[in-house]
């Protein structure tokens, strides 16, 4: 296994016999409570011949500590920091190549002068996305994860004071292109937006439920290509609604502008 990010062939062959279901309604409105700490620890002991307690060589320390408490704690701090300043943060998650960056380019251009925006964008390497998004009226910062396959709350938290200058109302966090891991790492956002393009088929929502069941909104991109593809819009909508009943879905093309008006009006209403 790759020590950096856990990818690659395992040293010993093994297979997953069954899918692991993981869908849940997870509210992020409050800091995550967690237990644990010295007060929960106690040692086991035996007794010697006279009946007095004697500590054993092996001691079992009982805890009930959430494992991801560190990222959760950082996310809770981010959430509080953003709330205090009236900033709405959206965490954009999709496969690589879905069109997050182009959508952000067009969004920033349209909202310039109307809604003060800011962007944190993440990739393994390069600042290509930050360069594309620069000069559109919004501060932009790039996180290079180097090896990690998702953004984490601590690194995002470090950038918040820099990228959200006074007056920012809407922060876009463009996550690393990945439909799996980012869904598990709370960044402190107001909600997640799941994106998929017409070139990705109709079944991404049911293949990647851990993301789609947590999405506050879904965006279907590259609608301009739909006429050239054997792509079933109804089937895609059905899959989205089946996994996340009632979720608001936008169908658009950042390239042609189709459907962009609804998306922009939605964003403006979020911060009004």
């Amino acid at each position, binding site marked *: 296994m790759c020590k950096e990010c856990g990818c690659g062939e*395992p040293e010993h062959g093994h297979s997953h016999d069954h899918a692991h279901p993981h869908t849940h309604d997870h509210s992020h409105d409050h800091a995550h409570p967690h237990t644990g700490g010295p007060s929960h620890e106690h040692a086991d002991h035996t007794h010697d011949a006279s009946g007095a307690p004697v500590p054993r060589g*092996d001691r079992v320390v009982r805890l009930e500590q959430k494992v991801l408490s560190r990222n959760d704690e950082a996310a809770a701090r981010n959430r509080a920091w953003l709330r205090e300043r009236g900033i709405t943060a959206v965490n954009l998650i999709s496969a690589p190549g879905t069109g997050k960056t182009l959508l952000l380019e067009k969004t920033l251009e349209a909202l310039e002068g109307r809604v003060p925006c800011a962007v944190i964008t993440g990739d393994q390497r390069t600042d290509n996305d930050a360069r594309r998004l620069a000069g559109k009226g919004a501060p932009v910062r790039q996180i290079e994860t180097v090896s990690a396959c998702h953004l984490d709350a601590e690194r995002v938290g470090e950038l918040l004071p820099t990228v959200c200058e006074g007056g920012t109302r809407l922060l876009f966090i463009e996550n690393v292109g990945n439909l799996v891991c980012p869904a598990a790492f709370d960044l402190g956002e107001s909600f997640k937006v799941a994106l998929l393009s017409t070139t990705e088929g109709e079944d991404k929502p049911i293949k990647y439920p851990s993301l789609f069941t947590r999405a506050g909104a879904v965006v279907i991109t590259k609608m301009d290509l739909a006429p050239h593809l054997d792509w079933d819009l109804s089937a895609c909508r059905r899959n989205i609604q089946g996994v996340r009943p009632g979720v608001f879905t936008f169908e658009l093309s950042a390239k042609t502008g189709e459907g962009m008006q609804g998306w922009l009006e939605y964003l403006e209403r979020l911060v009004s």
Partner: protein
Amino acid sequence: MHELSVALALLEQVEAVAERNRAERVSRVTVTVGALSGVDPAALRLAFPVAAEETRAAAARLDIVDQPARARCRDCGHESAPEFPLAVCAACGSTDAEILGGRDLVLTSVELDTADPET
């Protein structure tokens, strides 16, 4: 694939416990993994020794306790251990499910090997 991140976070907590209790070695780590935690127990089992290398838990045994998913139908109140992602109530067919349990990813206990027991 992020089970390595999870394992690293886990080992950080385990090391802290060992340090607090002045133990040189950790012999066993017990983790509760909920069906809805997003963590795959098999992948965690693979990642654990990698993350534990050169720590006090390098030779520790990992015990994983599975925590099943539990949901309650908001329409009729029926409780079940659902099959996801399309959680349909077996009693009334509604998809409006309230999750009651199965989300946990918890370090339950750590077994320490202390060469010199304290009196």
